[in-house]
């Protein structure tokens, strides 16, 4: 028997031995991938292919009918789809941006500044990593009611901004920034804010990208806030509207529309991740809880 050489982690180039691994994970990859291919195909199927018996997996004559119907459906319901899109864009943009600003600021303080209660706060945040938002949906609802934020954009936005996972990853990443660099800036007379803005922020771009993507994934598909805190139809988000469409249409004809709706929700996520995946992997390398 040949001597075992140890597996090579992160090989530089493709070798024959890797084919075995690919074959081993292929069935699972197909299981993960097929539903996504299916939703792509389904969204572009014309009516007769949706009704086809036996049902077909792939689309043969793609059309945009389902997307057209999706937009018409919203016109007939009184609130134009542009309203939902507008709401979603405002909410998503605000949450992502504020989440980045707040996590990086807090991460900087937790990583590089000295103050009382620092280690307690870090412990509390580490505990909060295991926070399951759905478990407190009732008290959250009561809190938002008490604060008078019902039917307000703030009800979509504020509960999602503080993300323990995001702060945790950002803080771990800032830990990697060499202290000598920061010391030098202080020597030159920079204040804390200057250090945060001109040293920390430029150096932690991968962590910022990751924090952006995590916030985006939460807020973009969030239906809980529209469901529980918002009664005014015109204040609800695209995710909510798409979700009602998807759930209301059980007839086969509606399936195409529902698939188109799901696709519209999914695509921005996918594109964002493909663009930022290098930064995300870079950040994840520092994600360990010690």
């Amino acid at each position: 028997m040949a001597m075992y050489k140890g597996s090579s982690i992160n090989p530089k180039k493709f070798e024959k031995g890797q084919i075995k691994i690919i074959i081993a994970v292929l069935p699972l990859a197909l299981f993960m991938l097929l539903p996504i291919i299916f939703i792509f195909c389904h969204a572009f199927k014309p009516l007769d292919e949706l009704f086809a018996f036996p049902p077909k997996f792939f689309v043969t004559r793609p059309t945009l009918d389902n997307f057209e119907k999706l937009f018409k459906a919203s016109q007939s319901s009184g609130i134009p789809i542009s309203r939902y899109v507008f709401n979603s864009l405002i909410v998503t943009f605000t949450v992502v941006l504020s989440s980045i600003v707040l996590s990086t600021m807090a991460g900087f303080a937790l990583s590089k500044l000295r103050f009382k209660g620092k280690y307690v706060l870090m412990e509390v945040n580490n505990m909060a990593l295991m926070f399951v938002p759905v478990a407190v949906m009732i008290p959250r609802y009561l809190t938002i009611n008490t604060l008078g934020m019902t039917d307000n954009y703030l009800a979509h936005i504020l509960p999602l901004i503080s993300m323990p996972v995001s702060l945790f990853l950002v803080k771990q990443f800032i830990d990697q920034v060499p202290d000598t660099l920061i010391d030098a800036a202080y020597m030159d007379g920079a204040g804390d804010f200057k250090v945060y803005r001109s040293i920390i922020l430029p150096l932690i771009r991968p962590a910022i990208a990751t924090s952006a993507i995590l916030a985006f994934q939460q807020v973009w598909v969030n239906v809980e806030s529209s469901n529980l805190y918002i009664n005014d139809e015109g204040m609800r988000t695209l995710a909510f509207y798409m979700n009602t469409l998807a759930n209301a249409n059980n007839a086969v004809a509606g399936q195409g529309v529902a698939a188109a709706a799901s696709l519209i929700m999914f695509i921005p996520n996918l594109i964002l991740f493909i663009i930022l995946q290098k930064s995300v992997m870079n950040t994840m390398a520092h994600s360990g809880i010690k």
Partner: protein
Amino acid sequence: MRRTKISKRENGNKSAYLFLSPYLILFFIFIIIPMIIAILLSFTNFNTIQFPEFKGFLNYINLITQDEIFMQYVLPNTVLYALIVGPGGYILAFLLAYALSQLSKIPRTILALIFYSPSMTGGVAMTVLWKIIFSGDQTGYLNSLLMKLGIITEPVIWLTDARYLLPIMIVVALWSSMGVGFLAMLAGILNGDESIYEAAAIDGVTNRFQEMIYITIPTMKPQMLFGAVMAIVGTFQNGLIGVQLSGSNPTPHYAGQLIVNHIEDYGFIRYEMGYAAAVSVVLLGIVWIFSTLSKRLFAEKD
């Protein structure tokens, strides 16, 4: 602990609180305070209209002794679901990360994207997809396929059949479980020191399995723990899919009723907020126990 010049700076104190306060204020209002309210409400009877009435441990006692649905359906469903999706999804994520780490960059990135993408939607947006696949008449995709293969003769009403709902939920949850934790473990393995692997081979590690147990896992314990916590949270956070798939709460014959649905049922359908809060506290407790166990398992020994 490392002490540097920065950490000795005097004015770090005041501005540190300034940097922290925006995050902390929102953190307390929407995470800490709701948890405290949940605990307080769990000792009361509260119908959202009248002021909560203190009842001591009555809700908890009722939950254990009176709530047949909880004991007979919700708890066993949750345990089964959580055990398969939690540890199952976690082990799967680790094995996949381990396999992918031994590929070169391009195939690795493509495969990682394939495994990660289902989790991006959080399961919710994709419910419609599973509804179409498991659609209950003969034009449903799964029914049609199984009938063609001769495995079944009559179409099965998958999503409202009490026998199939929970297994389908588990499959869907596993499908979308390769999330942040999976990426963290992949990055953790890739960051490992290659010379350790070479040294281990010389020192007598003779196969992949040994290598995985003695080298890979010990060198990436912190990532393993992060992955475990993310797996636990994801498992319980995804608990609403049963209601989404079957389209009703309670789910048919309580077959897909998980603890999260039970909270929603009592809180927003029956408006027994005190009781629902007690169930929430139990859920938070379960998550905490699981996370603590994982910490024991992967704690770095100093």
